[in-house]
């Protein structure tokens, strides 16, 4: 099976591998998994005061397509607002990386991960503002 150059590039030179401090209130963490293949994916975003994602990191244990999908998403979300980032669809990821049909679930996982990270950031911010009142 031939993989696209973009996919191989993200797999061989993954961008933004690493971790952010999950206890930082400006950080949202999404942790998701695909049991069928035993994959686990962590995607984190650092959000500034204006609600712009200034940094993103990921750590994925899974196949090449899962690594490439999460790597691509961290690149895409940087500089975006939360609402813009939440609009990323798995089909966009799958198309960009030309994922073969059997690997579509990897892009679904990456979409789930960014959504989970945004949800985590928002719920942290809410509980912080509640605590401040």
């Amino acid at each position, binding site marked *: 099976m031939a993989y696209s150059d973009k996919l191989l590039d993200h797999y061989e030179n993954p961008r933004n591998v690493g971790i952010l401090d999950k206890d930082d209130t400006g950080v949202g963490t999404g*942790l998701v*998994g*695909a049991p069928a293949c*035993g994959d*686990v994916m*962590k995607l984190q975003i650092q959000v500034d005061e204006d609600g712009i994602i200034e940094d993103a990191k990921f750590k994925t*244990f899974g196949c090449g397509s899962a690594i490439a999908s999460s790597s691509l998403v961290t690149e895409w979300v940087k500089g975006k607002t939360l609402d813009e980032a939440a609009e990323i669809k798995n089909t966009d990821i799958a198309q960009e990386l030309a994922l073969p049909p059997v690997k579509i679930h990897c892009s679904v996982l990456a979409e789930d991960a960014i959504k989970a990270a945004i949800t985590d950031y928002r719920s942290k911010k809410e509980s912080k503002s509640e605590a401040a009142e």
Partner: protein
Amino acid sequence: MDGPDSAADRAPAEEVGIIACWSCKGPVKQVNPLCETCGAVQPPGQMDHYQRLGLAVSFDINVADLDQLYFDLQRHLHPDRFATRSPRERAISQLQATAINDAYETLKEPLTRADYLVHLRGMGVFPEGCNLINDQALLMETMELREALAEAETTDQVDVLSVRAQDDIKVCIEQLSKLFSENDIEGACKLTTRLKYLQKLAEETRIHRMKLI
């Protein structure tokens, strides 16, 4: 008194119907791959993997019994036995052999058996099977263990993780047995997912260890 016709008692077949043999039109129990009257091989038909092999539906199975039932069936369905038969019967025997292999492969391993049993008992409740996960504790545990494995630089370090994974797998299978016997399908589904992650971890420890040697 009838003795058992194989290593294990065959499961009661009341719920499985009687069909007409395609060749001699005589009655055949649906669970039988061969016609009792004319010996013609019968199409696989719709039945679950347990029925197909003649086992009672349970997570706890005796693997020696399973092997015996499987080998008995395969012996009767070996392609050589049908070499001189009609093309139609040869084709049907292939379908039978495939269906029996499928059933055997699924029931042999605890993980695939658990997955199948959740599906069999919880159909409609878990349309995705045990393939969706929202168990954050399991994900965190998996992430930590996979990170520890990625950082392991000696075979000793890998072995610690490997032994832990094997122990966890053993405990998980024991717990699955208990939950299935209590008919707690939701709990069993959750543990099946955990078993998938544990087996994946065990596999990764093997791969990582080979790279270090």
